[in-house]
């Protein structure tokens, strides 16, 4: 099914460069060029994919992979459509440095909220989206939380995030102090490995 769809797509949209990626385990997908996503989606909708289930993105070291999950309720089909965009700069709250891709909100209205979520969580600028605002985090949030290199901001609206007097430091130090008291334990639980990686603890996790 995927090979046929890819073949059909490359005839319908010549610039799409559609390839079927067949998987031995799990779901196969069709990968297209990010520049032609809008035309591809229009073509797919006319082919019968009448529902956009969701838009998700995955952060890899060198690229961001956007997945469109499409479904055809009349013929009972499901298709994963993938495209790749460069990562861009995901720090701060600047839309211009983000990777750009055309919005498909004009094809399926479902894309409206799904793209807003992808923008909020992964930092992708959907060009032509009617109302591209953050959806789950506040409007002035810095950074994009689901990126692998995301670091929690230190300050938010001049308020310090996690100020020292609000952290239950006794709780924080509990494990550390315990370790100091016990001396050199043979085994410590995984909860402790945050401050210095204990090889025995790792072993305990891998073993058995």
């Amino acid at each position, binding site marked *: 099914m995927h090979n046929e769809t890819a073949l059909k797509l490359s005839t319908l949209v010549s610039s799409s460069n559609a390839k079927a990626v067949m998987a*031995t385990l799990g779901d196969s997908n069709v990968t297209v060029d990010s520049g032609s996503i809008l035309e591809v989606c229009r073509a797919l909708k006319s082919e019968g994919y009448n529902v956009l289930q969701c838009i*998700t993105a995955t952060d890899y070291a060198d690229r961001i992979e956007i997945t469109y999950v499409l479904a055809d309720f009349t013929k*009972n089909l499901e298709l994963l459509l993938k495209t790749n965009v460069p990562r861009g700069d995901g720090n701060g709250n600047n839309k211009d440095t983000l990777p750009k891709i055309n919005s498909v909100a004009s094809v399926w209205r479902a894309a409206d909220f799904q793209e807003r*979520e992808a923008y909020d969580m992964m930092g992708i600028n959907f060009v032509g989206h009617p109302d591209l605002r953050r959806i789950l985090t506040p409007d002035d949030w810095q950074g994009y939380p689901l990126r692998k290199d995301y670091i929690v901001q230190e300050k938010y609206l001049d308020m310090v995030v996690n100020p020292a007097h609000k952290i239950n430091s006794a709780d924080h130090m509990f494990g550390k102090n315990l370790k100091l008291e016990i001396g050199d334990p043979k085994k410590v639980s995984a909860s402790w490995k945050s401050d210095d990686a204990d090889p025995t603890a790792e072993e305990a996790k891998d073993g058995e």
Partner: protein
Amino acid sequence: MSTHHEPEDKIMLGDQEILKSDLLTLNMGPQHPATHGVLRVEIKTDSEIVVDAIPHLGYLHRCFEKHAENLDYRGIIPFVDRMDYLAAMSMEWGYALTMEKMLGTEVPKRAEYIRVLVAELQRIASHLVYFGTYGIDMGAFTTFLYCFQDREEILRLFEELSGARMLYNYIWIGGVWNDINDDQLTRVKNFVDRFEPELLKYHSLVGQNKIFIERTAHVGVLSKEQCLDFGATGPILRGSGVEWDLRKNRPYGMYEKIDFDVVVGKGEKGTVGDCWDRYYVRIFEMFESIKIIRQVLDGIEEGPVMGKVPKIIKVPAGEIYMRTECPRGELGYHLISDGGKTPYRLKVKSSCFTHVSMLPIIAPGQMVADLVASIGSIDIVLGEVDR
């Protein structure tokens, strides 16, 4: 889709211009009994008529997807429960199916039957909450108490099965945690026998009531095309007259062998796709669930309840998108694994999130009180919307 309104804009309701006054911005929520959780809807009204409604989400955002990237595959299940906390069993089942498909685990027959049984009981419990709270939205308090009394019986059974009332952690990868005993099966049988006539009674108490019909019929109409365009699923899509149920169309678990009907809204009291139709679909889905439970009770066989699963689960590299039919609509898990002990990416497609996005098309042109009816009828759980 929010539009920016200027004070001198002309607002037409149907073919006549409505009372020209300044638009009033009204915040409904986040602490509002009619929004069913921490949803904030920014409403622009002209006198009593809603011109625009913009939902603001994120008050319950916990970034489940980021959590999942740092947890082992078994440890995710308790977090999955906390998404749709009124239908935790269905959430778990979807996740377990995703993992089993990737791992190639064979689930024992008895476990499959128990899964169908608990998922359908959960569907009844979840729809009972909808029914009860929708009654409150409409000014009928009695059903709320009746529904919660019946729901309590289901929750009690779940507590005996799994040990918790709401966040079960019961359906595991490869099977279910505990076996169900004959005594509990008899109780389920007694419950459905007692509950079926009760439900009919509730339906004639609320659903057939003229006041309720006046409040819900012709209100919040969603057409078939709008539903498909927005990707709505579950009772909303079925309420608009589309016969689409994953349990029928893409069967998983034991549903292939089970005979039941898909309830579709027919516009009995008003237009197809109005609030009353969505109510109707949910109520008669409960009857279908009872039918399914009866078949499960007849067909359940002896055997183990846990399949063979490695002690440390490592999912081979690959990806999968798996959807299941939950009480509120289709739930999709998109799992990308790189072969490690934690998922590389786990995306949850929640149906409630999609349904919230339909508020801006339901609301305009309604009275504020009808908006309450519309929000109640799409039945959202904010835990699943914000994740």
